């Protein structure tokens, strides 16, 4: 290999394959240490139990259920995500593996890898929390298709909006609090949209074209594309 | 003119003139600092 043109050749390696390598490494590490999953899931389950225990399924009147349940669900999802999504970057900094990673990987690949990992975490979170929430609170949903689409696109937006913030706060002090402080204003439009979408799904409002899902998808695309542009700036040097 | 309006107007004017005076003083102070900084550089 040495002496050839390999240094400036990309060969078969693409951003995607490198990102997948980072994604799988994070997953492997996560399986062995449960560093982020514990934080997120325990936070989510505790909150869900607290909500379910103190409100139950009878306190809220039939007419107000669709809206209030959507609000509760998204508060649980967003704040659980904020409690743990920064972990993958913070861990690199704490274990001082960040420098080696900076030396060996392209920034866009790092961003994508971490994004995939965060999306995996969010998928696990939603798979556990959303069905339990529906069962515990007796949440009646008229349009399951819209509901699922909203939860999925909202989850993608959560990951897309917070991954770059996680990379920033990992290199700052006062990490835990700062992550929520920085992410929340960015997530607000998404959260409001998702609540509205879930409410409509529960009521069964006939809205053709699913505008809320579209907004959430547009939000995700915009945030991810912007992050891909901006990430090299905060990652290098 | 309604009663009380002239009072509010007076309060507003007093606040504004105070603020403007403060800004002018600040301006002078900064200018002096800039001059000393420029002198030190030479």
């Amino acid at each position, binding site marked *: *290999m*040495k*002496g050839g*043109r*390999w*240094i*400036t050749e*990309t*060969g*078969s*390696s693409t951003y995607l*394959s*490198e990102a997948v*390598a*980072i994604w799988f*490494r994070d997953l*492997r*590490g996560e399986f*062995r*240490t449960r560093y982020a999953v514990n934080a997120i899931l325990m936070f989510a389950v505790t909150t869900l139990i607290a909500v379910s225990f103190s409100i139950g399924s009878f306190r809220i009147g039939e007419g107000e259920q669709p809206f209030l349940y959507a609000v509760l669900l998204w508060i649980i999802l967003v704040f659980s995500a904020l409690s743990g999504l920064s972990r993958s970057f913070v861990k690199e900094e704490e*274990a*001082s*593996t960040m*420098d*080696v*990673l*900076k*030396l*060996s*990987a*392209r920034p866009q*690949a790092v961003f994508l890898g971490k994004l995939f990992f965060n999306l995996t975490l969010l998928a696990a979170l939603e798979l556990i929390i959303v069905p339990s929430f529906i069962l515990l609170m007796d949440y009646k949903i008229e349009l399951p298709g819209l509901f699922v689409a909203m939860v999925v696109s909202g989850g993608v937006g959560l990951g897309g909006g917070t991954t770059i913030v996680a990379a920033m706060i990992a290199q700052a002090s006062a990490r835990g609090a700062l992550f929520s402080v920085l992410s929340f204003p960015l997530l607000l439009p998404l959260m409001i949209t998702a609540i509205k979408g879930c409410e409509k799904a529960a009521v069964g409002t006939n809205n053709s074209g699913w505008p809320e899902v579209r907004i959430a998808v547009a939000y995700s695309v915009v945030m991810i594309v912007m992050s891909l542009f901006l990430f090299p700036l905060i990652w*290098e*040097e | 003119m309604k009663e009380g309006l002239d009072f509010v107007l007076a309060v507003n004017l007093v606040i504004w003139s105070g603020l403007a005076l403060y800004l002018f003083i600040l301006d002078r102070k900064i200018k002096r600092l800039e001059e000393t900084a420029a002198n030190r550089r030479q």
Partner: protein
Amino acid sequence: MYSLKVSNLCKQYTETYLFQDISFELHPGEVMAISGWNGSGKSTLLRVIAGLVRPTTGRVEMFFKGESIAREFRRRFVGMVAPAFSLYEELTALENLEFFCKVRGIGYDRESCLVIMEQIGLSESAGTLCRNYSSGMKQRLKLAQALLHKPPLLLLDEPGCNLDSKGMEVVENIIADQRRSGMSIIASNERREVDYGDRVINLSK
């Protein structure tokens, strides 16, 4: 074919210069040593050359056949070891090497990784989690990580730290190997490591 050119490097922290006006050129087959007291900026100089820290002024350029290498490809050009680096503790040694192969985009080849493990004397514990490694073993694995992609430029910051005499031999062999076709820069205070260098830059004023 390869070369490294460092011109007028300066790094400043608040009021004080860490180092000033460092310029040199390096060509294949050359080994340079950087010495200096603690806090004289040896490690920072290496980090600047690797591209981890932005210099206050000056530039670092790498060339391949006279062409400057874009930032994106520098990760293939440089291999670096430093005491401040760590590898992933929750992976085994071999998994670590596999990860760095893939992420560098050079393709994972188990056989050649095992050869490198052999070279650094860790072949028996290739499947052990790095968490259970001693600090000397970790240092050896860091050396392996830096050699994986056969970099033209090897940056060694205190390569001998935590190593026993056998480990020092490994370092010696690595530097001798690198001398055949590549460049290396060693930052150290150990007499023995500094002596590997054909040239020495002393950073202490």
